[in-house]
């Protein structure tokens, strides 16, 4: 039986699975930018980073050439990469847990060594690095969100249930001195995207992340895309360079975004993002540039997610740092932006903070939950209808609506 020739199938590795990315000026140290990359959804004690992957933040300067509906950022060609890598453990700590050594390589080529799960990070070359098991800062009523997308109407409760309650992740936190690390860059506006790529001679992009919910929802199958009805675009999308999409699937991404964004706009029964005569949604090109935008000259603001994007669409100057802080209710902001364009009351999923609020001090992510909750896997299918069916089958959603 041990010789059963079952064909090896590709196996997802959780250590390269990006859960979330956050970008924000440090609330406690002005002049510092904090980059957070969370991987391994629902990690637990014993979870380790891969030694065969590089965890990378890609930073490019951006400018805003013009404002108004449909505006997009102009991304510069200079790039400032911050790459984090890990070794396989060779020792254990006093509790018998494997110890991982890590290395953070800065745009200058300098490498800063650190040890995973060491909160007493030393500072070197303008950078402090932490990596290890922490509490997931995500908060969302996932059940209500899936039901909203699947049914095409807002179904949130006033007091929602945080689907990510008690979850842990493996987090990488890089706090950098802007003048030291990005001082050569022009301007104060930056686009930031995060990736996991294979180590080795020929790096392959495994996953990438910019803004909230672009891959799983905006490019997911809401059932309204008439051009590519049963095509899961997520893996194709994952392999793309966030700053330079290849032409091969651009039309498919555009068709999906146009259809899904239009459907989202209609959730409240009124159109706030009128389509162009050719059917293009005003936000399609913006979301195709899938990165967060942060203004390092502005101070920390907890609720600044998408403020720069909204200001650009409205043809006005932005007032905050943008980016995404750990305590920012990016889920509500994203839905409100996509559904109402800010023309009306804020849409809320009824969940306003994580299990434990993130800290204003390094390493910012809350300590891990020693007794984490079980894995919630209902957001995995590409088809939102399948996500809803999974929730109904698990008894998490009532069938009467």
């Amino acid at each position, binding site marked *: 039986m041990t010789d059963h020739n079952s064909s090896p199938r590709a196996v997802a590795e959780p250590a390269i699975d990006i859960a979330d990315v956050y970008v924000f000026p440090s609330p406690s140290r002005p002049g510092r930018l904090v980059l957070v990359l969370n991987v391994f959804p629902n990690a637990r004690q014993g979870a380790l980073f891969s*030694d*065969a992957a590089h965890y990378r933040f890609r930073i490019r300067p951006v400018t805003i050439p013009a404002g108004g509906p449909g505006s997009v950022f102009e991304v510069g060609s200079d790039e400032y990469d911050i790459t984090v890598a890990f070794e396989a*453990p060779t020792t254990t700590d006093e509790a018998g847990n494997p110890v991982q050594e890590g290395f953070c390589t800065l745009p200058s080529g300098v490498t800063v060594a650190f040890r995973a799960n060491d909160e007493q990070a030393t500072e070197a070359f303008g950078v402090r690095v932490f990596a290890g098991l922490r509490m997931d800062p995500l908060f969302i009523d996932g059940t209500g969100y899936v039901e909203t997308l699947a049914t095409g109407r807002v179904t949130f409760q006033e007091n929602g249930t945080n689907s990510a309650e008690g979850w842990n992740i493996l987090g990488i936190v890089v706090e950098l001195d802007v003048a030291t690390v990005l001082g050569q860059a022009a301007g104060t506006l930056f686009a930031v995207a995060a990736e996991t790529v294979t180590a*080795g001679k020929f790096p392959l992009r*495994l996953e990438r992340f910019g803004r909230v919910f672009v891959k799983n929802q905006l490019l997911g199958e809401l059932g309204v895309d008439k051009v590519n009805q049963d095509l899961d675009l997520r893996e194709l999308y994952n392999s793309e360079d966030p700053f330079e999409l290849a032409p091969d699937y651009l039309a498919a991404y555009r068709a999906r975004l146009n259809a899904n964004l239009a459907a989202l706009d209609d959730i409240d029964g009124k159109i706030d993002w009128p389509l162009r005569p050719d059917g293009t949604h005003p936000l399609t090109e913006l979301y195709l540039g899938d990165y967060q935008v942060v203004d390092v000259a502005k101070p920390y603001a907890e609720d600044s997610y998408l403020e720069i994007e909204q200001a650009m669409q409205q043809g006005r100057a932005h007032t905050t740092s943008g980016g995404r802080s750990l305590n920012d209710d990016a889920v509500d902001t994203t839905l409100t932006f996509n559904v109402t364009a800010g023309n009306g009351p804020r849409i809320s999923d009824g969940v306003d903070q994580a299990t434990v609020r993130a800290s204003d001090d390094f390493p910012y992510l809350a300590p891990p939950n020693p007794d*984490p909750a079980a894995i919630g896997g209902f957001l995995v299918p590409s088809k939102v209808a399948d996500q809803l069916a999974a929730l109904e*089958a698990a008894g998490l959603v009532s069938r009467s609506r």
Partner: protein
Amino acid sequence: MTIDSEPVTTAGAIALANLEVRIDGYVSRVDGGRPTVGGRVELIELIALRGQLLGSIGDLEQAVALADDLVAQVPSDARSFVARARMRAVFHRFAAALSDLDTAAALGGGSVVLDAERAGLYQALGRYDEALEIRRPAAVANPVFSTLAALALLHGERGELDLAESRFTAASRHYRGTSPFPMAMLEFQRGKLWIENDDHGRARTWIGSAVRRLPAYVPAQGHLAELDADRGDTGAAIARLRPLALSSDDPDYATQVARVLSDAGHTDEARTWRDKAEARYDDLLADHYAAFADHAAEFWLTVGGDSERALALARQNLSLRQTPRARALVRRASSWSVAEHR
């Protein structure tokens, strides 16, 4: 022969630690009473994977039990039946597995997934032409790691070694991931093909690579020990096999270490392992006859020392699956039986 170590994959110890973390996470979800079908299927797959990598029949039995529960509790979901079909196939219940796939199809299961599973079952039954009708166009239409690996294995079983080698190489080049498990399994299967075709040099290259990628990979270590023994390196073979025989509940390793110890003149220890293997095979044949008939036949042909029993088991195995390997086992058992009665 040297091989490129690309693709680079995560260290085996990291990957196995993370596999345990994932299993723990899913177990607590199932125990917490809020499982989705997708989550339960993933738990079954992860436990089965661990069983295959670490030589744990107990894990595979647990995966089967979970799959049976899933079908009983969610009989309206095609994925339940696909999961059970896969687990039935692991225990060589091929007809029952095909029946599950038919049910999955009736419930609306995706044809690409179901066809791939059927092809694996046809291959296991020796119905190579039917398997090829599925595997070859699948690899042409979607040349990715899994389709190319599956086609490579099929060509290998059909004796088309050059084609198998080219597809193995293509599968490696198409691997898009960091998990060591699929690559180690591919290299192991590639090495086994060369053991069966009497090129122990090539076999050692590939199985050695699988072991470097994933040192805890029990079946690969077991076959490397077999190669050690065949080239006369008895000490190395015993050093590899003893820990496997101690840690794994698969009696193959007890059988192997008994044989090597016996050849090296350590008759007392060899007898101890032989007896352990016999007892374990008796238990396994009672519960999983189809899955273990061939391995038990190997036991009785070697350290078991009963060619009549071996021949009976080999014939039963052939009745279940008409593959070249099954026919070869019957021929060997027949030869031994004739020799013993001269």
